[in-house]
């Protein structure tokens, strides 16, 4: 009996291990094309690597393969679904009608131009634009792409209300019903990437797009490999291909860069940044203010005007940015100051004035060094969540407030949207979001300042501001839009409804000779393109 039982168990263990051995480490890879990248992946097993080269002749100027790390990986490559289009754009596979440039302008990509006449936009496609299979991108295909996006992505369901018509092969119109000035910018969102809907048979694993690269190997929620699109409509493609290793953790990325296994990556952590900056001959670090904003909401329902003003005069963004060692740039308003709609002013830090304001409002310092009024200590309820350095910022703000005599209690939540943002149970709520998603201020203003907006949870309400937002919605002149946006944001700043702390830097590290990894564009959804180069 004993022997039989032991034999049975041993057999079961051996059988299970045999099954596991045959499958472990092998994801549901989809290999679609190209032996070149397989070679690159195999070579990556070597501890010391030089830039991978392949022998095959190509039309581009280089036969090199770029190796990089990606912090996110998804289960699908369907450009229109979820945020997958961000990654097909980073992989250089999908392209949009317009593209955001370094100055946050939507510039033509697949489209020649987009002209608005009232509520009707006329969009003209560039000549010669074709998918990687050689099929041309027609106006009808572009319209069907927009219609599919509306169907499969809840965030773009509003597109279903627009009337879209293909006028000829290269021109189509979009009737938005009301005047819709931001359509051109929205068309630059990566989810608007164009796919050959007729020829694509597997949207999740092998979408056929117009980009300079095509997918050669896709492992859902894992590594992705691309090879040069030999039929690229835009001309020569420098790289022969690229490998995107899925690496979530910061330390392995740093070690992989040091061991020469990757050529570049973005979203560099402050610890890694300090290492790279010590060896400038080995690493080229490019850091620019990005579009992701760290800010706080001051609750007008629980804090009076004087306290809010004192808080904003006390919080020192420069010191916070300094402490976060290069990962954040101090913000003035919610947008990059280079943008035309980023021209606002905030009072300089002045703790003496903050104290004066509190004292004028009837607060007095008690024996503990904290302000109190009517025997009640001034205590701020700070809510935050432990991501995007908000935990560090919360502690720094607490320290800075303490120095002027304002006491505070920190409260951490795992899910801010379901807790303090939804309930308004805070005095000061920290949050981080993309403030500028497509080179226009309306999205952020509508999300945080408009009456009833999800993130207008601190009681900010201003009739004039609401009126201006109404104007901004329909204003088509970009100069006037910027002026309106600046006026709206200035109202919120003057009302001390918010504190804009910092803009996350888009920090990229590259090996010398590597360039064109979207290191100068402040948006998260760009990566390699036809110009990406390894010298």
């Amino acid at each position: 009996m004993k022997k039989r039982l032991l034999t049975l168990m041993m057999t079961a263990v051996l059988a299970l291990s045999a099954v596991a051995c045959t499958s472990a480490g092998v994801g549901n890879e989809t290999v679609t094309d190209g032996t070149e990248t397989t070679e690159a992946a195999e070579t990556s097993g070597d501890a010391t690597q030089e830039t991978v080269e392949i022998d095959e002749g190509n039309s581009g100027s280089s036969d090199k393969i770029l190796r990089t790390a990606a912090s996110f990986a998804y289960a699908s490559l369907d450009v229109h679904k979820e945020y997958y289009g961000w990654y097909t754009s980073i992989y250089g596979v999908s392209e949009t009608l317009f593209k955001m440039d370094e100055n946050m302008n939507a510039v033509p990509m697949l489209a020649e131009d987009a002209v608005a006449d009232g509520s009707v936009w006329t969009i003209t496609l560039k000549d010669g634009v074709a998918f990687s299979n050689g099929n041309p991108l027609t106006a009808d295909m572009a319209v069907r792409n927009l219609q599919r996006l509306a169907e499969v992505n809840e965030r773009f369901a509003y597109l279903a209300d627009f009337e879209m018509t293909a006028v000829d092969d290269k021109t189509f119109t979009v009737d938005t019903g009301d005047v819709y000035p931001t359509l051109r910018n929205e068309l630059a969102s990566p989810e608007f990437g164009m796919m050959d809907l007729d020829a694509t048979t597997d949207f999740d694993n092998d979408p056929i797009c117009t980009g300079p690269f095509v997918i050669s190997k896709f492992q859902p929620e894992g590594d992705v490999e691309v090879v040069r699109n030999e039929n690229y409509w835009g001309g020569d493609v420098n790289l022969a291909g690229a490998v995107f290793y899925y690496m979530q953790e910061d330390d392995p990325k740093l070690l992989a860069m040091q061991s020469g296994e990757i050529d570049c990556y973005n979203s560099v952590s402050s610890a890694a940044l300090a290492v790279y900056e010590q060896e400038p001959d080995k690493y080229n670090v490019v850091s620019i203010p990005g579009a992701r904003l760290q800010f706080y909401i001051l609750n007008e329902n629980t804090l009076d005007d004087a306290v809010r003003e004192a808080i904003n005069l006390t919080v020192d963004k420069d010191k916070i940015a300094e402490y976060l060692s290069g990962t954040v740039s101090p913000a003035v308003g919610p947008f990059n100051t280079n943008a035309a709609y980023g021209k606002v002013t905030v009072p300089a830090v002045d703790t003496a004035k903050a104290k004066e304001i509190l004292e004028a409002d009837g607060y007095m310092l008690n024996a503990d060094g904290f302000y109190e009024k009517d025997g009640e200590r001034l205590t701020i309820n700070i809510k935050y969540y432990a991501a995007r350095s908000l935990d560090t910022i919360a502690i720094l703000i607490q320290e800075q407030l303490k120095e002027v005599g304002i006491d505070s209690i920190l409260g951490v939540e795992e899910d801010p949207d379901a807790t303090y943002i939804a309930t308004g149970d805070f005095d000061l709520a920290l949050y981080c979001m993309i403030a500028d998603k497509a080179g226009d201020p309306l999205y952020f203003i509508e999300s945080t300042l408009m009456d009833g907006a999800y993130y207008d949870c601190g009681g900010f309400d201003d009739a004039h501001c609401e009126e201006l937002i109404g104007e901004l919605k329909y204003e088509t002149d970009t100069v006037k839009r910027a002026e309106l946006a600046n006026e709206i944001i200035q109202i919120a700043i003057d009302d001390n409804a918010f504190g804009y702390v910092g803009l996350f830097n888009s920090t990229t590290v590259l090996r010398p000779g590597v360039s064109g990894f979207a290191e100068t564009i402040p948006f998260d959804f760009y990566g390699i393109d036809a110009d990406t180069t390894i010298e």
Partner: protein
Amino acid sequence: MIRNILKKIAEIVLILVILSFFVFLLLYIAPGDPAEKRLTSQGVAITKQVLDAERERLGLLKPFLVRYGEWLLSVIRGDFGISFKDDMPVAPKLYKGLLNTFFLAFTSLSVSLIVSFILGVSSALRKDSMLDHAVRIYSFIANSLPNFLISVLLMYFFCIKLNIFPVIASGNIQGLVMPVLCLSIPMTGRFIRQIRTEVLNQMNEDYVMGMKCRGVKKHYIALNIIRNSLGHIFTIVAIQIGTLMGGSVVIEAIFRWPGIGKLVMDSISARDYPVIMGFVLIMGTIYIVVNTLSDMLDKVLDPRIEKD
């Protein structure tokens, strides 16, 4: 015999139903919204209308009991549902993660057991020798080191300094060495101490004294000691299997090992209830089955347990 087996199966099913109900309830009560997590995963703000539409689509507006009932019926039919995070079927995700984790866990456990057994028994048989001191110091240090620290130190040493292994490893044997080492080092620390203690306990038993008095050969006494220690060792291993199959999130994240631990952590962050529930059900089953097998094995190895 058959009656006992049926009774055991009925017990397992009942435990799993109760477990799944309470986990479903806890997920329902806990703050967090899968729809909101999904829509804002890249930090883009959303409107209330979009959020409500997504909640409706995912079936989150239905009452608790309806949702639980639908999930349970679906599982009975063999369907673990669709992931809230990406609309992909849950079963293949769990299957792939479990197999990868099993492979890693089985290899680490085997390495740990072999090393620990040799060092633990040798250390006990040569109590207070230099070897014993060295082994005890090793087990103390290995047991104290956190996984993430071991991972980064080993990576730095083997990948950067010695240049033996790549930082970016794929699912081959070369890629297995580092994660196995990282899992095995703390595990050997625990196992060695427990094996040594158990062997020392056995050495103080009367039967050992009796064998020595009767002049039984040393190696035969040692074999008896080891045999009698096995029951306890198997219990420790059974507990460790459960822990290992739960996945080692840190190791999986650092070494890019697509196991169940990382999948579940990502699913918890995304409030991906179908994946979490599937995991709970499978892990519950594994725990119960492994512990039942461990009890059976104990009885085989030590018949006194049955008599008690």
